[in-house]
């Protein structure tokens, strides 16, 4: 590489450092709230929650026990499951008599009611109250839209006129509404006229495109909020820039090579989970608990591998195999949506695309600082710390998913937002490294070689390799009379210099010569005929002496 480009590179890095700081400010300033919607109702209310499917609407009912008893005259005792089951026919008849949706043109819909249950809860200001649950399936006459109709719901409220029914939509694939419940309105007494209002459900336009886009977004959210999926991939990528030598991580591979590795691992993971996502969504039964436990195992395995290589060179294979497991978990999200036909096919595609996009974004965000830091002494503690953390979290999850709830799993579950922090810290570290490095570079240019001297304790550490070339470049420029940067406040400059020296001591490893590495493991060269430096893409820093001596 030519000198001019290198010098220009240093300046660009300063700007880059600033840019990254801005980015970090954005990342750390990012707080995600979940908007809470709770109006202060004094008495228990009925909730009717709609799930809109292709040509059918499911209405999940939750009716307070006292109120349905008072309105229907059906005695449900204490509202236990058995008592509700015993009165199922009476309840069904009562509900069917008071739940008669019609199309806007007047045709009656078909209604069936099943899945009776009961429970109790407490809402703001209500005290604890019992309720019954049921699901009503509403089907419009053939050829009529399921998106616009009179709900025709008067259960309880026609008799108990102080009662309030809140109607909302939980999922409506074609309008892109999946995860967020939207209130449609209330059914209640108009106190002035004494009439109980009816409610027209108008879901507006829906389209396959809207549904598809929302599935992409769901996929993105799934990875963004899925700490375990992210943790598996990232932990597996942690040692990707490193060489495995004699069952230890040592040295770095070339950048091109680590990019290739990261790409292969990510791709294998994608292929793996795409297969099972599709199979699961199409109906292959998924043993939920076992899958969740296996996901924890996958993170554990990746963590151990990041500590000590246990399957060096086979990361892609492992990623693919565990990808199959993660895909099964992904499929559960789609199964829950209870989709069919064209909606299912589009969902599968969109959801997977969303997952891949977010996965790609995570990798792209983490990869640059990781590869940068892999070339510093910081990386070893970082790798060990991260792997240790992932291992502990995975162990906690594993225990929890095998039926032993524990605080470790709770904490790990609460880390949803923490990936931002992790990314921020990585980038911060990378910014610091880049900034200090380019300052060291310009400092080395400013200072004449003889003045401080390599032996002087106040001088920066002697530089070699790339630095030495840049030194000579700096000197050459100085001798031609080019303006060199002068410190505005000498004391500040000196203070900075001290920080710089200490910091550089931390990341500039006293590297090994190529010879010393081959000396250290004579068989290694023979077993690796395509040495990285043989092709000219040299990575000169390999293991630190301490690592070497500990294995010797």
């Amino acid at each position: 590489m030519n000198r001019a480009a290198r010098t220009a590179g240093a300046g660009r890095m300063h700007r880059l450092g600033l840019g990254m700081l801005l980015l970090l400010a954005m990342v750390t300033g990012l707080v995600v709230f979940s908007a809470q919607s709770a109006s202060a109702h004094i008495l228990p209310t009925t909730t009717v929650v709609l799930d809109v499917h292709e040509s059918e609407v499911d209405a999940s009912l939750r009716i307070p026990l006292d109120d349905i008893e008072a309105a229907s005259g059906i005695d449900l005792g204490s509202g236990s499951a058995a008592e509700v089951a015993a009165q199922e026919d009476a309840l069904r008849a009562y509900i069917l008599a008071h739940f008669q949706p019609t199309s806007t043109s007047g045709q009656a819909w078909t209604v069936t009611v099943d899945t009776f249950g009961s429970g109790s809860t407490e809402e703001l200001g209500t005290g604890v109250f019992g309720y019954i649950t049921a699901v009503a399936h509403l089907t419009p006459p053939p050829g009529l839209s399921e998106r616009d109709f009179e709900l025709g719901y008067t259960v309880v409220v026609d008799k108990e006129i102080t009662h309030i029914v809140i109607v909302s939509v939980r999922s409506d694939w074609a309008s892109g509404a999946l995860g967020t419940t939207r209130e449609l309105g209330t059914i209640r007494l108009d106190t002035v006229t004494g009439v109980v209002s009816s409610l027209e459900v108008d879901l507006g336009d829906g389209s396959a495109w809207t549904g598809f886009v929302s599935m992409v977004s769901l996929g993105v959210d799934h990875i963004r909020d899925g700490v375990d999926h992210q943790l598996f991939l990232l932990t597996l990528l942690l040692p990707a820039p490193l060489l495995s030598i004699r069952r230890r991580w040592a040295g770095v591979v070339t950048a091109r090579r680590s990019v290739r590795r990261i790409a292969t691992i990510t791709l294998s993971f994608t292929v793996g989970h795409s297969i099972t996502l599709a199979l699961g969504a199409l109906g292959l039964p998924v043993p939920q608990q076992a899958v969740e436990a296996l996901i924890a195992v996958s993170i554990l395995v990746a963590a151990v591998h990041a500590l000590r290589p246990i399957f060096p060179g086979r990361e892609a294979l492992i990623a693919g195999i565990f990808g199959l497991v993660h895909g099964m978990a992904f499929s559960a999200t789609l199964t829950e949506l209870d989709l069919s036909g064209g909606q299912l096919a589009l969902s599968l595609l969109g959801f997977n695309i969303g997952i891949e996009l977010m996965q790609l974004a995570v990798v792209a965000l983490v990869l640059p600082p990781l590869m940068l830091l892999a070339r510093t002494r910081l990386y070893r503690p970082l790798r060990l710390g991260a792997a240790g953390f992932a291992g502990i979290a995975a162990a906690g999850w594993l225990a929890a998913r095998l039926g032993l709830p524990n605080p470790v799993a709770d904490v790990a579950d609460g880390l949803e937002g923490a990936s931002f922090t992790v990314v921020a810290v990585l980038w911060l570290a990378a910014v610091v490294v880049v900034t200090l490095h380019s300052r060291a570079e310009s400092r080395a240019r400013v200072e004449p070689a003889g003045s401080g001297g390599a032996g002087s304790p106040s001088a920066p550490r002697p530089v070699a390799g790339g630095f030495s070339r840049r030194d000579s470049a700096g000197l050459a420029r100085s001798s031609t009379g080019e303006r060199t940067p002068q410190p505005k406040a000498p004391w500040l400059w000196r203070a900075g210099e001290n920080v710089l020296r200490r910091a550089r001591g931390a990341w500039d490893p006293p590297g090994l010569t190529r010879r010393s590495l081959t000396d250290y493991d004579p068989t290694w060269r023979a077993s690796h005929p395509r040495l990285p430096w043989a092709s000219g893409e040299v990575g000169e820093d390999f293991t630190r002496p301490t690592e070497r001596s500990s294995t010797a």
Partner: protein
Amino acid sequence: MPKTTPFLDTPSLSRRALLGSIPVAALFLAGCSTTAASTATATSTATAIPTAAPAAPAAPAAPGSIAALAQAFQATLSTDQQATLVHEYTLANAELWSNLPQGLLGGSGGMGGAGGAGGGAMPSGAPGGSTIPSGAPAGGMTGGQGTGSAGPRLGLSLGDLSDSQLASFNALLAAVTGSTAGLGYDEIQQHLNADDYLEANGGGSDYGRANFYISFLGAPSDTGMWEFQFGGHHLAVANTYNNATLVGATPAFRGIEPFSAFDGNGRTNQPLAVKAAAFTALLAGLTTDQLATAKLGSVYSDIVLTPGNDWAFPTAHEGLQVSVLSDTQKALVLAAIAGYVNDIADADAATILSKYQGELADTYVAYSGTTALTEQNDYVRIDGPSVWIEYSMQHGIVLAGNHPHSVWRDRTTDYGGTKA
């Protein structure tokens, strides 16, 4: 010689990678920041609580008047306390009362309050209540219209008053709420004891007299409009004065838990006993035929005109018309009405009661559930040309056993007649 290695041996790669990843990072963040931005908007709306207090000091009111006592109480307060106490006279502020403890009125309630004060777009609950909300509001918030409340109460907590400030407030409260035994001031003292009882018996810190609030909407004076607001869990006093005259004593909410007698603060308390006894006597005094006419067909699990359901009186009167009753029975109806009207200053109460007495023939009595008025969903209503009183038995919240909610409204003088 050990070779020092530059930490960036392949600068071209890292620069490219770093540069290249910035758009990706931006995309990644854009997805997340949309949520953050919309949340930020919502939060800033929530914090805009209506507090604009009129600063102009009012002229001294006539000695011995309610306004003079209010000014005297105000004078005992620090500047900060006065700023907390006095708020603008608006319907939106006047509607900030509820049966719920203050602690349950935060969150989304605060939003509603802010919206009402900011844009005057408060749903009035008038005929508009019949139209169906066509969907969630743009902000995604479900308003507290109806059973909910617009937001937390304004004003100064009883818990923030010194002994001398409290004494001055009690003098004002006694003058506002009258001297009838078991009603008015006496009932409110028992009411506060009841909430202390709840605090000590499972309710926790959301309950207790420190959660009762005093507020002046407008500066008390002999000229112009102002409202004396005092309330907390199960209690709302709302007296509106215009040019030194009481122009509205409603909406007045009274509920109580525990409903049965209990010991507290050195006495035996049963705050709503007088009201409950008057209703029971009224229903007990009716014949079987009269009761059949008075009985409503629906089930009432609560009062109809709940907090926030303002200016939403039914057009039609239901039940038994008082004109057909005997004088004894009429007296029982009037006694039940007096159970609420006597919650205000004696002279004011006499004026209002004589007005209601004059309208008695066109007043209706209706009930639902049992006439004992002790069971859940037991309900009684007195509905006249002006008077509107509802009393509803509900299940316990903090304690076991049923407890009543009740409201006294007036078809013309709620909020002193302020409708917008």
